[in-house]
């Protein structure tokens, strides 16, 4: 499993072809706005960033809100991390 992070909406265009079926995606910073649109894969989003932007309750399902310790756990479970920005 590879963990992809996306920190802005435009980051999705960079990695959309690179996310394999069993990969995971974490949205952070302005990347959490991607949760406003339907996405082809299941995602997590950093709760602090979702709250800061007033997006609690506005995101499409299924977006799982996580904190930084969950993010660290995902990194340890992944083989490697790809950061898209």
């Amino acid at each position, binding site marked *: 499993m590879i963990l992809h992070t996306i920190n802005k909406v435009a980051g999705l265009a960079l990695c959309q072809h690179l996310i394999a079926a069993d990969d995971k995606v974490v949205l952070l910073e302005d990347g959490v706005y991607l949760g406003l649109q339907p996405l082809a894969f299941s995602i997590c989003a950093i709760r602090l*960033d979702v*709250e800061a*932007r007033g997006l609690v309750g506005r995101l499409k399902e299924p977006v799982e809100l996580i904190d930084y310790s969950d993010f660290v756990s995902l990194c340890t479970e992944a083989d490697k991390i790809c950061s898209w920005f």
Partner: protein
Amino acid sequence: MSSMLFVFSRPPHGSINAQEGLDALLMGSAFTACSVLFVGDGVLQLVTGQSTDALGTKNFSLSFGALKDYGVTRIACSMPDLLARGLHKSDFLIEVEPLDAAGMQALIRHHDKVLNF
């Protein structure tokens, strides 16, 4: 005296740009007739319920409530950009006038200077 249109096009919090844009608008409104137009991801600055307590940064969205007090003439946003983000003006912290292309072009035409942030 030149009138000024401030265009806000950046999302909040990801960088200081949105906040520094608002600072400029508040300063401008002390000197001359100013309006503001939110376009692109700039419309996201206006979303209700922003809470930066846990993030530890400044929640400058609270300052939008002061725009009327500062005498800002018109507070408008791009209707196409609002719709493209699945938002409605009821999602906004303050009363904002959504404009179509012709309305935005007229707004630009009716101000002497345009500053984008």
